């Protein structure tokens, strides 16, 4: 708990993190941009709010994740912290969950601000669709889970890397691949019969190794008030916990082997 508190405090006072937090102010621009859509103000404001939330969480995850572990190693803070009677596992997990808590708090703030922004924007032009707050809330929760999983990857890459760039760029690559994997998989499996069996098998393996971030995407359900498939959400939640467990276990195993010289 002491380390979690310290990490949060250290982040709050970090200039880069403060700049990223101030991006919350961009929510004020959502009604203005929504107005350009003429008749779909409500739908656009919901989509934009979720996209902006996603953008803020992405930046927070990338920079926060890298700042926490990589900077501790680079600035040799680990020499002090790991010489205390704590295990490396508890250090690693404390740092991770401190950032998850920060992401959770920012998600709540973003949701609260979005709710105000959506309400205001929706009042400008009456939409034929209702605002289903539960769908919007769940979309925010899923985004939070998605970036927590991405954070697990950043921690994994930072556990063995000595440079700032490896965790950042590897995680961006994972993020892009994770968002595209479902589409590419569907295309290969259904769309093309010219591809060999081996290619399809390779695609299947890569598809199962890479995280599937598109399953966390509930933007369409939130925007168009579509009925939710609870089985699918349940499956995604289990997938999240299993995948995160594997990624964190790998990260902890690598971090436990590492030399701090």
């Amino acid at each position, binding site marked *: 708990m*002491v*380390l979690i508190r*310290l990490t949060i*405090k*250290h982040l709050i*006072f*970090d200039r880069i993190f403060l700049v990223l937090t101030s991006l919350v102010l961009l929510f004020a621009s959502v009604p203005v941009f929504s107005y350009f859509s003429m008749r779909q103000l409500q739908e656009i404001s919901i989509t934009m709010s979720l996209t902006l939330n996603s953008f803020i969480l992405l930046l927070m995850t990338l920079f926060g994740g890298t700042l926490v572990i990589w900077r501790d190693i680079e*600035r*040799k*803070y*680990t*020499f*002090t*912290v*790991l*010489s*205390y*009677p*704590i*295990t490396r596992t508890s250090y690693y997990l404390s740092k991770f969950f401190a950032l998850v808590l920060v992401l959770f708090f920012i998600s709540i703030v973003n949701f609260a601000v979005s709710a105000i922004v959506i309400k205001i924007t929706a009042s400008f032009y009456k939409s034929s669709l209702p605002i289903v707050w539960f769908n919007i809330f769940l979309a925010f929760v899923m985004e939070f889970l998605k970036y927590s999983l991405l954070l697990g990857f950043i921690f994994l890459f930072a556990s063995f890397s000595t440079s700032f760039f490896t965790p950042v760029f590897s995680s961006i690559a994972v993020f892009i691949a994770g968002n595209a994997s479902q589409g590419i998989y569907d295309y290969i499996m259904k769309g093309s019969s010219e591809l060999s069996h081996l290619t399809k098998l390779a695609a299947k393996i890569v598809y199962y190794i890479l995280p599937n971030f598109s399953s966390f995407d509930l933007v369409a359900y939130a925007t168009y008030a579509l009925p939710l498939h609870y089985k699918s959400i349940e499956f995604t939640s289990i997938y999240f916990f299993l995948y995160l467990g594997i990624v964190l276990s790998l990260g902890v195993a690598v971090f436990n*082997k590492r*030399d*701090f*010289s």
Partner: protein
Amino acid sequence: MEAIKVDNLKKTFKLKLKQVKALDGMTFNVNRGEIFGFLGPNGAGKSTTIKIITDLVRADSGSAYINGIPSTNHKARADIGFMPENPQYYDTLTGLDMLLFSASMFGYKDAKTQAYKLLEEFGLEDSAKVPLRKYSKGMIQRIGFAAALIHKPDILILDEPMSGLDPIGRMIFKKKMKELNRQGVTIFFSSHIIPDIEDICSRVVIVKDGKVVKDFNEVEIKYLTTSGFEIVVKNASGTGLDMGEKEISKNLYRIDCDKGNLINTLELLKDKRIEIIDIEPIKKDLEDVFIEILNG
């Protein structure tokens, strides 16, 4: 049981394509109540050994123990205070916060009184609420030492604690180390600054190329750093004494003799019934001894 036991540690680092042997069978014990000096030139393996003891680096083979607990077990660090070389701390913390954080990591609550006491002892009371990023290097060393002491450890491990300190800071550190040792704290102290080691250590181990080359206790340190003796005698004139004596004041003479020749000189003085006023050892620096040993 030894406070620290290091047994045949071996460690090789990969540096780009080269393999660098940092430790090559490092073996020694630190006994309870000692101020143990760990002396060696740069690259001898001092910091790597300390990092293995504090589990920051894992040995290729061999083992290290603190109070009989393997150093890879986090519980081994429960009774140690550690100050790394050129310490770096979370710079958003204030000096006081740093001490309280350190105390809480050892499960030591209500450390505020102890923290203020240490801040005062190390001359940092005015900077207690200043963030560490505004501290000078010397102040960081002091807060690092205070943080290593906040939980009242049994064993102190200090890696080059006095590098970059001003003379007052060095004096404070040495005084504190001696005081802690009198209270029963075992101190493991690595340095390449020989006068510091000579001044406070009760045992010195010299390392070179990743292994121990000499292990001296306090008596041996005294013997090795004594090159001869200065004997002050009275009424030597007219006795036919021919030992290169020099008159230092009226009727007082000084005779210098090698340390292997002391008994013969004293017997000769006794035969001639010359009154001995004082005998003082002539000291040479541990630095000279250190260089002699390193040069084989």
